[in-house]
């Protein structure tokens, strides 16, 4: 077995809390989140819009934009790199080399006044001492991997590519330094159905070909089915359930997850049985006490209003944060 096997996980996220601190109010967009990203796994992080997925992803690069701040927790990469205590220069070297990210709405991810090829080239050159020839060959190879025509794409300015092509060019850019972890934030939203399918098939292709861990952030459980090994469900900045994909789909334990599953057409099969989750998404500025899901939860009891539930292991590799997981 390779050495990587010694660390089953590549990235340990321990009790991370991220707050957006504004003049007279602050939001805990990510609240005490712990999860380990395992070697070569595809991890899905699912949650409604506003549940804190993007903020969590940005914190993995220590790139939460102001007024956001990581206020507590630890990020340990590869068992040894303490990401939150890196110097500016070390952090710069860490970003993209170890963890790369395809941003939500990659439509605006490229500098509009530089050619795609130049932006890819500078990404390599800022990190590695390789010849330009070698770098260009690598760029070509990766563009082919995401099924883009290398010469044309490299010469193009961002506005000359379609949304789907830009998304794929961004995926190729993310792979340039052969990172250990690739984060994909809503990689299919804002694209038409055909491009969505295309991106998903490219991603499962990558998963087979590359030794890489993928983190897929999405509000749409359905797109996880084709790709991921494990799913973490986020609600109001917290992870409320984590399990292997099949386990979660067959035996969901958290009432919110059950609600999510009932709202997914491909899982329910029969469209008539689709049920949206009752109630409104939580107001992040004014969260309910105790379990933040209690106003919408059909199983809520008095205790849920007082006490916040924490993740417990319900069965092997299946964690849930609910006081009543045994009963529901």
């Amino acid at each position, binding site marked *: 077995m390779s050495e990587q096997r010694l660390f089953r996980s590549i990235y340990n996220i321990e009790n991370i809390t991220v707050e957006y601190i504004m003049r007279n109010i602050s939001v805990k967009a990510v609240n005490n989140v712990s999860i380990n990203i395992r070697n070569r796994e595809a991890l899905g992080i699912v949650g409604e819009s506003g549940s804190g997925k993007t903020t969590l992803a940005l914190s993995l690069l220590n790139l939460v934009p102001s007024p956001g701040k990581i206020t507590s927790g630890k990020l340990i990469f590869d068992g040894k790199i303490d990401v939150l205590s890196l110097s500016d220069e070390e952090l710069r070297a860490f970003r993209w080399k170890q963890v790369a*990210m395809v941003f939500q*709405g990659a439509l605006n991810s*490229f500098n509009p006044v*530089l050619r795609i090829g130049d932006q890819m080239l500078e990404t390599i050159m*800022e990190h590695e001492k390789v010849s330009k020839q070698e770098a260009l060959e690598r760029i070509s190879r990766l563009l082919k991997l995401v099924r883009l025509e290398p010469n044309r794409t490299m010469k193009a300015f961002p506005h000359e590519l379609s949304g789907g092509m830009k998304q794929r060019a961004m995926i190729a850019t993310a792979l340039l330094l052969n990172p250990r972890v690739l984060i994909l934030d809503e990689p299919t939203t804002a694209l038409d159905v055909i491009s969505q399918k295309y991106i998903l098939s490219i991603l499962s292709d990558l998963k087979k070909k590359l030794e890489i861990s993928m983190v897929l952030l999405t509000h749409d459980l359905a797109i996880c089915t084709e790709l991921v090994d494990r799913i973490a469900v986020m609600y109001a900045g917290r992870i409320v359930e984590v399990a292997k994909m099949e386990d979660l789909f067959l035996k969901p334990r958290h009432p919110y997850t059950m609600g999510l599953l009932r709202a997914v057409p491909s899982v329910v099969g029969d469209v008539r049985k689709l049920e949206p989750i009752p109630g409104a998404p939580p107001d992040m500025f004014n969260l309910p006490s105790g379990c933040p899901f209690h106003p919408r939860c059909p199983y809520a009891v008095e205790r849920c209003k007082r006490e916040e539930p924490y993740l417990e292991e319900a069965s092997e590799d299946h964690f849930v944060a609910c006081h009543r997981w045994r009963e529901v």
Partner: protein
Amino acid sequence: MKWIYRRVLLALLSIFFTVVLTFFLIRLMPGNPMDVYVQMLIRSGRARTREEAIERAKSLMPLNMNDPLWKQLIDYLLGILRGDLGRSISSFTPVSEIIVKSLPWTVFVSSMALATSFSIGTILGLVLAYKRGTTFEGFSVAALTIFGAIPNYIMALLLFYLFTIVYPIFPMRGAYSSTVTPGFNLNFILSVLQHALLPIASYVLTDFSGWALGIRAMASTVLGEDYVTVAKARGLRESKIITNYVGRNSILPQFTGLILSIGFMFGGSPLVESIFTYPGIGRFFASAVSARDYPLLQGLFLMLSITVILANLLADLLYTFIDPRVKVGD
């Protein structure tokens, strides 16, 4: 390519219409060169009676002043085609000679001022955008707003008073000292710089704030763009992000303004040049207006409209090269 021809043709037409329009507008000003000249002769005592003054003025006026307007206009346009802009009524010097002599001084001072205020403004604007939300930023923005509100001739008066009267470190008038011989020698160059410094400073101190505030506003927007965050995520060096990402994208929109300013540069400022008795084109604008010197005014406006319209054309053409998103023909 067809698009470029169209733009050039349009520019030529604009120049033609501006020339015709100024021809009439100048003549709509109350008073005419005759009246002004007659008054001057009487006041200076060079003519005793009004009749005598009118008689003398008529003999001196080099103009076909009594021809119908349309004939005067055609004469003037034909003159332009021959390269003849006529003679100034007040000094009897050919208009083209006045322009050729005074324009270099104005262009020298204005271009130095524009280059300096644009560079200072750009750097300061970028720094301010980076220091968003700090007290330094708040203070600087307030100061810049005040500086930007001062007209350049007030600044010129202030500098003139401070540095030629209170602390007489700079010369009061002219473009160079009478003791140096014009030519390519160190003394002459130093003297020119010494004389130009206060006029340049008057422009720079009042103009740089506009550039700075413009860049700052643009850069603040650009800093919030996804591609800047992505550039950070890609682990690019800070210096690279400031120049190639924030800088390039925020300077781009300023670019049109810069080229247009180059066009207006050729007009100089009548008031600032008068304060420093600087022999530039602006001073002739001022004297030509008060003397109702039609040929000189026409010549100056012709020159200015050509430079402004050409600068416009240039800005359009260059922008298509600088911003890849603008397609030729848009």
